């Protein structure tokens, strides 16, 4: 049941046939974990808090640096030196006091991650390194937790969705099996702020659609965004039966 203040707050959702009261109640009853409170996590967390996700769990172990502010738009200059999850929690509580926000201020072990995943509906991977991405993917496959992956660098972005509840779901490791951090990240390659914003916002959009039950074309797909041409390319990913992470799981 939505309360009167919730009906007021989410009135523009309720006007949408695709959401309506039923969809808003699904959002209210949902639990979403966002890992990484940087450039992707900033818009993703803001939109999901604003949308009325009932329980939002935010995770990061980093302290805000002044060089983050060019793209991590949830923070202000006064937050420099603070733990990102603590600054973000304050920001989200101010934005929407009607939801629950829990922060995890450390790097989770594989065991803790799996335990957290057993209690939630969806994970957003908003991290900035390959080691974390592989760890999150493995835990999501093992716990059959749906995973929305976003990544961005320079002037390009990547977006993927793996519904690990489905036996034919591919996984991140099927397409990118490497564990080393030779892959590009924002610290070593640079990034244009709005590019991470676009990908993080797309993660929030797909998260809302998934929870409400609006069909998505993103399952087992990789979308590449080129910020120079504004073109999106879409690629299909089949489950790799020889994948070391998901190949043996059906």
């Amino acid at each position: 049941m939505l309360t009167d203040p919730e009906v007021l707050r989410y009135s523009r959702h309720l006007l949408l046939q695709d959401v309506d009261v039923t969809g808003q109640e699904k959002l209210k009853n949902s639990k979403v974990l966002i890992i990484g409170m940087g450039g992707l996590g900033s818009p993703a967390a803001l939109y999901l808090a604003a949308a009325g996700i009932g329980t939002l769990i935010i995770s990061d172990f980093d302290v805000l640096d002044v060089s983050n502010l060019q793209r991590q738009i949830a923070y202000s200059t006064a937050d420099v030196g603070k733990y990102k999850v603590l600054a973000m929690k304050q920001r989200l509580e101010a934005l929407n006091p009607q939801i629950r926000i829990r922060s995890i201020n450390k790097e989770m072990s594989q065991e803790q991650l799996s335990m957290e995943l057993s209690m939630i509906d969806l994970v957003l991977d908003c991290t900035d390194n390959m080691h974390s991405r592989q760890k999150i993917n493995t835990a999501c496959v093992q716990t059959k937790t749906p995973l929305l992956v976003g990544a961005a660098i320079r002037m390009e972005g990547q977006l993927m969705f793996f519904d690990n509840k489905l036996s034919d779901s591919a996984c991140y490791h099927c397409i990118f099996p490497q564990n080393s951090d030779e892959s590009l990240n924002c610290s070593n390659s640079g990034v244009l702020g709005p590019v991470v914003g676009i990908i993080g916002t797309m993660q929030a959009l797909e998260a809302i659609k998934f929870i409400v039950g609006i069909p998505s074309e993103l399952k087992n797909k990789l979308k590449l965004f080129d910020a120079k041409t504004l073109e999106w390319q879409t690629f299909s990913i089949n489950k790799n039966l020889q994948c070391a992470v998901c190949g043996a799981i059906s």
Partner: protein
Amino acid sequence: MIINVNYQRMDVEIDLNIKQLFSLLKCDLDGHAVAVKQQVIERQKWASYQLQENDVVSVFQAIAGG
């Protein structure tokens, strides 16, 4: 035969496979993914996957940033 790789036209030998394409491109196998006609090709098939005339091939890197 002519194939298209990342929007560039390439004239290559008939029956070139994906692994050989990587050598031509002087590109590391690790850290990359390949799609032919919008379908990602599993890594273990690269050595046996023969490209066809007019194939549209996309080679891209994993991105970790966020």
